[in-house]
Structures are given as structure tokens and as C-alpha cells.
């Protein structure tokens, strides 16, 4: 059926074109022989092809364009005809004798164009007559095309300021009046299309309508090109009249398109000065109109305008653009109770962008927007709508992009409240965005309060926000996220040790809730930044203020101890062990023997109780030995204990070569070059001997097993010692 329809349409179009061409041929002949009578007759017949109702707008346009070309030739002929002495007034009457209205009006517009050019009558009179006579075509498609023809031929003949058609009687007011009237009538026709034909073809009709919308919008474009329209006239006449039509037509498609058109074609400066009027129209639109898009575009344009030059900013202040927009959005949301939350958020997001551009110094505005958004969101469940959440992310990212400084965003009290409405997934994304922003800009966040606020924001990354299980979370993504958190922790820094300590405590508080999966990522950076602090403290001279009671290395180590302990619980013993050793080394540097000893103890406990894998053991023991070797705070007794333990562990390693290597490594523990008290040659020798023994054993074993001299290397290694 449908295929048939299309085929038929092709056929009708072909027939139409054929008829048109045939008559155009006769018309040409008449034109060539200067036969006015025949020219009129055949041109009317030619134009009669446009009377068809069978074509879709698309196909009709094709036919129209052909007729349009022919009419250009006819217009030339009319021009010559008047030069030959034919009175243009007579010609203007003559074409009106045609019996069929559509050809008559096309001819009238064509002659009218020549009439205006001849300047025998004021342009405004001719224009007025034409636009009035065109009322005779009430069929939507034919009317739209006819009026679009009128708009086309009259375009360069409007009595605009500076135009040759401007005169005493013709002013720009007349030009505006003409275009407005044509616009109004065209819009009426366009809207009427919606209500014609069977209801089941609604979709098709809407498609057809959208094909025709530019014909209507063209009028607005013409208006915007009229030089003579200054701000006053725009304010007093043009905008109110256009808006009146837009509001009154009560048509969703038209309202959406035309509002957008107004915003796009007229200068930003005008919009700014007529914000009241323009915005006043929005709540009056049909509830189904997609206002959010239109308003967003308006705000976008205004933002860009504001960005274009600093000179225009005072204008924004003068007209109180922000509060007007804010009010308007409130009203629109009120007027459209069914507006999906997506729309609401989009609107606020645009408003936020606007205020960020225009009033970057007015944080309170931004906060106000966020507050309004929270208010709108409150009472709703977390957002399910993907698009809406996306918009919130955009909304929240805007201040970050603008200020390049999370610190500013942290001042927005409503910021975290908006974030709460995101689902945990998106929340994470947002948190990542925040972190990236920080890293990109190398923002320094140097007070505990802000850190607190920041971690409040990114808590989606720090811990599982809800009970939902995210088994399906991609491992890589997770790592990525946590790595960024880790990087963030590294970035937190304050020169004031006390403040830094507070920051560390705050961070610690937050990350400890992170659960076993996160801790391995988050604890190390914290530990290291703590250690950095320790070093910093150590580097300083005795604190001149003497009020170090809150931030002593000791205290820090205490905190560290607890922190690392949590790691061992989760369990990540290797990591914990490493960290303990790091701490111990730091403590060593601070000459805090008990602390260092404590750390070592912790490390040993871990080694004994948690590290069972032999490879891990080897690595661990080497670490222990290495660290221990560098320690110098220990007294003889402590050192002995630790060293013996280490040697003992070494000897108990599972594989002989490992044992051997560990043991000869231990020998270093007894000989530290720069420490006189630790030069126990005897013990060194003992260790080496022991190592040799083990090596022998190892060689025997391997000989027995494989008959090769695989372990000779061990001897060589020992010898190197």
C-alpha cells in the first residue's frame, strides 16, 4: 500500500512536471513573440499544476521550484513589457483576471515585484495588498509555498532603512508590518496542517510539517536582516508580535521551533534587553513543548555573548539576567508539572553554565542554582534515568571546568547534596571527574576542612555507598579509580605540619571505611605522605614554638601503626610488611628506637603468621634484612634479637638456595661499615659458613636429583662476599 502510494506520488509529480513544462514551453513562445495575452494565459495554466493536492510537501517543493524558475523569466518579461510602455498598473490588474486563485496570486506577486521596482506606487501599498490578497489560499501546503514565494520576491524590496524603497510614505515600520503579517499567516497555515487529515497519519504529518518549518522560520530570518529594526522597535513591536503568534498558536511543534528560531536569529544583545518579555512567553507555551532545550540554547548563547567581550558584562548585571532566568526557569517548571526530571536538571545545568560564565565571581548564584536543583530533586528516589544522571554529571562538572579549582566548588554547600541523588555508579564517575580536575590543575588542598569536604564528595570511590553488590564491576576500572584516589591522596599537602597531620587523620578516617578491596590502594599513599611529613618534621629544627604536642613524629607513627595494621587484617600481609618496614626506617631516621622496634615486631609477626607462600617469604626476608641492615637506632640487645630472628627465618626457608642466599645476606647484618659496634667478624664468618654448608647440601641434593652442577653459582656468590 505504502509503496504504491510512493509510486503514485512519483507518477503525479512526473505528470505535474510534464504539464508545467508543456505550458512553460508555450509561455516561452509567447514571451519571445511579446504576446502578453498568451503569456498570461500559459503562465496561468502552468501555475495551475501547483494546485495539486496529491503531492507530499517534499514533492510539491520540487514542482514549486520549477515553477519558480519559470516565474523569474516571466518577471523579466513583465519588466520589459513595462519598459515597452505597458502600464504596470494595468498589468497588475490584468493578472487578477485569472479565474483560479492560485495562479492568479503567483502572477500577482510576480507583477507586484515589478510594480515595487517601478516605484510607481509606494512599496508598502503593494506589499500590503499582496500579503492581504494571499489570504485567499487557505490550503496549508499551497498557502505556505505561495507566501514563501511572496517572501522571496519581496525580500530585496522591503522599505528598510537605507533601502532604495524607503521613502516618505515607506518606512521600516511598513517592512516590519509586512513581514510580520506574512509570518503570522504562514504560521497559522503551518499549524493548521496538524489538524487536517486522519488522526492515524499524525506521525507522517509531523514529519511533513518539519520539512516545511523553514519556510515559516525564514520570515523571522528576514526580520532579523532588516537593518532598520533597532532595539526599541524590536522590543515594542517585533518581539511582542512574534511571541503573541507563537503563544496563541498553541501548537507544540511550532512553539518549539519558533522559540528556538527567535533565539537563534536575533542578536544576543536584543535578547538580553528583552529577557523579561522573552522569558515571559515560556511558561505560556504548551506543556509538552521541549522548553529545556530552547532555554538551554538561550542561556548558552547568552553565555557565549558574555564570554565574547568583557564590555557586555555590565549589561548583564544591569538587566539582572541571572535572577530573571532563574525565575523563568522556576515558572516553567511550575507550569509544566509533567516535565521529566531530566528537563529540570538540564535547565539548571544550563543556568549554572550561564552564571558561571557571566558571574564567575558570584558563587552564591551557583550555589543558589544547585540549591534549587536539590529542592527539585528532593523527595525523589535516586535517579534511575540514565540521561538525567548524565545531565547531573554535566551540571556538577561545570563549576569544576570553570574554576579549575575544586576549592571553589567545595565552597558550594549544595554541591554534595546534589551528588547524593546520583546512583553509586555515576557518583563514582563524578568523583573521578573531580579527582581528574584536581590533578589536571594540580590544585593544592591544604586544609583539613576542605579535605573533609572533598572526601565527602568522592566518597563514592572511597567506600561502598550502598548495600548493592557490584560484582560485575570491571577490575580494571576499579583499579583505575582507586589509583586515582591514591594519586589524590598524594596531592594533599599542607606546609603547616599540624594542618597536614589533621589532613592525614581526616583522610585516614575516610579511607579506613573503604573495605578490603580499597585499602591496598589507599593506605600506601597515605603512609607515604605521612612519612613525608615525618621527614619534614625531622628536617626542621626543634620546633621553636614548643607546642608540638599534637604533631610529633611519635604520634604520627602511632597513627601509622594503626593504619598499617588494618592492612594486615584485610589481609594484605606483604604490603603491610613493606609498609611496616618503611615506617621502621623512618622511625630509625627519627631516632625513635622503641617505635622502630615496634614496627619490626609487627613486621615479624606478619612474617610468621601471615606470609606463608615461600616466594613471598623470600622477598619479605630480603626486605627485612635490607631494612634491618640500615637501622642504626637499635641498641645491641634489640638489634641482636632482631638479627637472630632474621637469621633464623633465613635458615628456615623452604628451598636450599633461598636459604643459602638469605643466610649470606644475613651476614651483612653483623657487619655495618659505618657502625663500630656492629662489626662482629665472628658472626659474619659463622653466617658464611652456615651458608656454605647449606650450599653444599644444596649441591648434593641437586647432584642427586639432576647430576648437574647447578648450584655452583651459590659458591661463587658466597665467595664474592
Amino acid at each position: 500500500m505504502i509503496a504504491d502510494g510512493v509510486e503514485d506520488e512519483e507518477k503525479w509529480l512526473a505528470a505535474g512536471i510534464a504539464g508545467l513544462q508543456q505550458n512553460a514551453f508555450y509561455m516561452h513562445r509567447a514571451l519571445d513573440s511579446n504576446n502578453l495575452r498568451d503569456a498570461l494565459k500559459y503562465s496561468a495554466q502552468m501555475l495551475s499544476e501547483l494546485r495539486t493536492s496529491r503531492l507530499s510537501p517534499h514533492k510539491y517543493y520540487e514542482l514549486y521550484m520549477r515553477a519558480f524558475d519559470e516565474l523569474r523569466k516571466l518577471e523579466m518579461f513583465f519588466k520589459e513589457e513595462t519598459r515597452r510602455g505597458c502600464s504596470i498598473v494595468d498589468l497588475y490588474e490584468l493578472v487578477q483576471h485569472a479565474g483560479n486563485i492560485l495562479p492568479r496570486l503567483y502572477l500577482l506577486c510576480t507583477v507586484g515585484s515589478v510594480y515595487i521596482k517601478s516605484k510607481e506606487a509606494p512599496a508598502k501599498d503593494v506589499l500590503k495588498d499582496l500579503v492581504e490578497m494571499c489570504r485567499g489560499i487557505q490550503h496549508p501546503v499551497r498557502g505556505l509555498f505561495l507566501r514563501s514565494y511572496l517572501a522571496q520576491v519581496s525580500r530585496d524590496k522591503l522599505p528598510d532603512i537605507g533601502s532604495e524603497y524607503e521613502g516618505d510614505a515607506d518606512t521600516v515600520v511598513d517592512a516590519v508590518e509586512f513581514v510580520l503579517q506574512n509570518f503570522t499567516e504562514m504560521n497559522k497555515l503551518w499549524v493548521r496542517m496538524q489538524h487536517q487529515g486522519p488522526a492515524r497519519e499524525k506521525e507522517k504529518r509531523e514529519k511533513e510539517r518539519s520539512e516545511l518549518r523553514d519556510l515559516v522560520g525564514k520570515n523571522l530570518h528576514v526580520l532579523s536582516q532588516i537593518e532598520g529594526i533597532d532595539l526599541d522597535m524590536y522590543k515594542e513591536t517585533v518581539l511582542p508580535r512574534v511571541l503573541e503568534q507563537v503563544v496563541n498558536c498553541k501548537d507544540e511543534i511550532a512553539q518549539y521551533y519558533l522559540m528556538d528560531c527567535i533565539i537563534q536569529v536575533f542578536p544576543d544583545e536584543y535578547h538580553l534587553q528583552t529577557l523579561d518579555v522573552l522569558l515571559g512567553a515560556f511558561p505560556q507555551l504548551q506543556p509538552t513543548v521541549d522548553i529545556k532545550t530552547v532555554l538551554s540554547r538561550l542561556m548558552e548563547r547568552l553565555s557565549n555573548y558574555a564570554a565574547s567581550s568583557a564590555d557586555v558584562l555590565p549589561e548583564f548585571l544591569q538587566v539582572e539576567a541571572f535572577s530573571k532566568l532563574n525565575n523563568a526557569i522556576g515558572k516553567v517548571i511550575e507550569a509544566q508539572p509533567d516535565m521529566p526530571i531530566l528537563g529540570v536538571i538540564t535547565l539548571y545545568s544550563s543556568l549554572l553554565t550561564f552564571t558561571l560564565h557571566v558571574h564567575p565571581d558570584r558563587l552564591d548564584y551557583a550555589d543558589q542554582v544547585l540549591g534549587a536543583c536539590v529542592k527539585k530533586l528532593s523527595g525523589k528516589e535516586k535517579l534511575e534515568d540514565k540521561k538525567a544522571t548524565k545531565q547531573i554529571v554535566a551540571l556538577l562538572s561545570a563549576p569544576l571546568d570553570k574554576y579549575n579549582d575544586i576549592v571553589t566548588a567545595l565552597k558550594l554547600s549544595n554541591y554534595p547534596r546534589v551528588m547524593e541523588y546520583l546512583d553509586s555508579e555515576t557518583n563514582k564517575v563524578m568523583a573521578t571527574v573531580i579527582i581528574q580536575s584536581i590533578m589536571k590543575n594540580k590544585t593544592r588542598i591544604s586544609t583539613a576542612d576542605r579535605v573533609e569536604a572533598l572526601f565527602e564528595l568522592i566518597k563514592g570511590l572511597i567506600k561502598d555507598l550502598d548495600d548493592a553488590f557490584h560484582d560485575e564491576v570491571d577490575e580494571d576500572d576499579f583499579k583505575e579509580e582507586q589509583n586515582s584516589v591514591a594519586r589524590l591522596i598524594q596531592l594533599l599537602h599542607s606546609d603547616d605540619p599540624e594542618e597536614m597531620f589533621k589532613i592525614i587523620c581526616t583522610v585516614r578516617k575516610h579511607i579506613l571505611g573503604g573495605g578490603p578491596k580499597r585499602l591496598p590502594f589507599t593506605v600506601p599513599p597515605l603512609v607515604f605522605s605521612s612519612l613525608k611529613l615525618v621527614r619534614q618534621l625531622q628536617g626542621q629544627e626543634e620546633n621553636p614554638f614548643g607546642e608540638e604536642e599534637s604533631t610529633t613524629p611519635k604520634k604520627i607513627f602511632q597513627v601509622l601503626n594503626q593504619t598499617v595494621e588494618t592492612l594486615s587484617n584485610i589481609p594484605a600481609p606483604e604490603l603491610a610488611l613493606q609498609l611496616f618496614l618503611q615506617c621502621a626506617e623512618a622511625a630509625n631516621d627519627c631516632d625513635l628506637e622503641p617505635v622502630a622496634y615496634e614496627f619490626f615486631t609487627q613486621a615479624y609477626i606478619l612474617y610468621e603468621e601471615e606470609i606463608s607462600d615461600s616466594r613471598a617469604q623470600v622477598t619479605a626476608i630480603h626486605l627485612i634484612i635490607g631494612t634491618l641492615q640500615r637501622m642504626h637506632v637499635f641498641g645491641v640487645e634489640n638489634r641482636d634479637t632482631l638479627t637472630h630472628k632474621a637469621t633464623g627465618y633465613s635458615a628456615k626457608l623452604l628451598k636450599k638456595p633461598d636459604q643459602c642466599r638469605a643466610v649470606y645476606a644475613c651476614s651483612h647484618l653483623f657487619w655495618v661499615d659505618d657502625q663500630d659496634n656492629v662489626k662482629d667478624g665472628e658472626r659474619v664468618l659463622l653466617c658464611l659458613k652456615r651458608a656454605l654448608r647449606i650450599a653444599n647440601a644444596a649441591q648434593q641434593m641437586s647432584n642427586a636429583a639432576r647430576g648437574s652442577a647447578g648450584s655452583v653459582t651459590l659458591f661463587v656468590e658466597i665467595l664474592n662476599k
Partner: protein
Amino acid sequence: MNFLIGAFKPACNISITFSDGKSRKQVPMKKENGKTIMVSLFQSKESIAGKVSIEPLQGKKIEHLGVKVELLGQIEMYFDRGNFYDFTSLVRELDVPGDIYERKTYPFEFSTVEMPYETYNGANLRLRYVLKVTVSRNYGGSIVEYQDFIVRNYSPPPSINNSIKMEVGIEDCLHIEFEYNKSKYHLKDVIIGKIYFLLVRIKIKNMDLEIRRRESTGSGANTHVETETLAKFELMDGAPVRDTSIATDIYHFLKDSAHNHVLGIEGESIPIRLFLSPYELTPTYRNINNKFSVKYYLNLVLVDEEDRRYFKQQEIAIYRQQDS
């Protein structure tokens, strides 16, 4: 019959010329055989003067019982063809009985002739003016020659010329108001008007304005009426479909406000501009000599999608205005 005689060899050539024939306006006239010839134009109370020349064929003489010229105003009904009713008949004797040997010319004059009716060629009748020259003879029949001329009478512009306003419709389906700027138009006039659509609930396809001529002949039971549509002028393509509730509101509003007319309502009005000059109209003729009348009507026709026609007919008077 006369032509038949003319076809045979007549005994003489008779020609009738008007004394101001060269300067007088000539207008086309359609003859019965379909040919159009140019003839002189007169109006009432003009003097009709001229010459009649009679030229016998070579070497022949015409014996006659007298020569006369008549000015006849005739009405011919087509159902009674050949039978003329003369409403005007003037005679001038040109010659006493005698013989004509050679070309002879007689001047004649009918001064200030009352010719109240205009020449008219209708569907069922015609009204004509003719000069008839008769050379009476005893034998061979009289020789007769005719010369047609046309009479047109001009009227001054009417002192009262009201517009026509009407409100018509079908209950709850269609309400329109229309307005023609005048009730009396001259032949080259333009009808200007507007049609206001107050309520449209039927699907109108288009709207035409027709000019119809109603020619009635005879009287009483024998009255015969012939109506012709002389012009069909499309006024509107498609229709302004109004949101019906609004339309109804406006309609009631109009009713309430005592026909304050539609002027307050923007849009939904369709302009009328119809030039009368391209159409072959005549003035309105009322009861011409008790024989016939010719009246003109404007017929506003709305055609819906099922090709049903809704119309309203209004008489307009047409008069002939002196060309300025």
C-alpha cells in the same frame, strides 16, 4: 430573407451611411451567422442622420412606388423567430414614386430619437436597432436594405450605493459573513469585499464567486427564465479551519454585541477583488417594454470535500457608466 435577396442579383445596390460615420465610435456586433462586424454606436436622444444611396445595376432602371427609411427598435423572441416586436418605429419618406436611372442619394435625419433600451443579445431574445430602407415596387417585391446600429445608454453613478452585508450559515456547521462594498456596480467596476469565517465545521475545499445573469422573458404563466454563469472566480483555496470552540465563542460574541461585525477579529477573513471588465456584462434591465428583464447576481459558492455546494445569491445592479 433579406440576405437571400441580397444573394441573388438585386436590381440595385443600396447603401446607408451615417453622416458622422467616420468619427463615430464603432463597436463589434455579433451577427446571426456568427460573424462579428463593426457597427456605429449611438445613445438615446442622439440625432441619427445620414445618407441613403441607391445605385441601379448598369443599364437598368428601377421603377418604384416610393423610397422610405425607417428607424426601428425591435425585440425578437427566439421562440418566435422572425417575428419582431417594434417598440420604436420612425419613418422618413425619401422619394415619391418614380424611376431611378442612376445613382441617387437621399439624406435623412431622425432628430433626438428616444431610444430608451439598449441593444441586447440574450439567450432567448434580442433587442436591436436598425435602419431599414425600403424601395417599394409593384412587381418583383420591394427592395429592402438594413443597417444595424447599436445603442448604449449611460447612467450617472447612483446616489445611494450601499454595501451588501450578509450573515449566512448552517446551524452549528458553518457561519460566514460576507460583505460586498457596493450593491451597484458599473461595467468596468471592481467588486471588493471580504468573507469572514466564524465557524467552519465542514471541510471546505474551495470557494468561488460567480456572476450569474438571469434573463426572464414573457410574463405571468409564460415567464421563461434563463440563467447563465458568466464568471466563475475562485476566491479561496482550502478553508480556514478554526478551532471550533473559539469560533463558537466569537460567534456568540458577535451575536451579543449586536452585530458589531467581525472587524475586531483578526484573521480568518478572505479578500474579494473581482474585476468586472473581462466579462461580457450588460447593465441590469428591468422589465423592458414588458417583454423581458436581465438581472445580475453574485453567487458565493462554497464547495466541500464531497463536492456539496453551499451558496448564497445576492442581486447586484449593473449600470453603464460614461467612460471618462
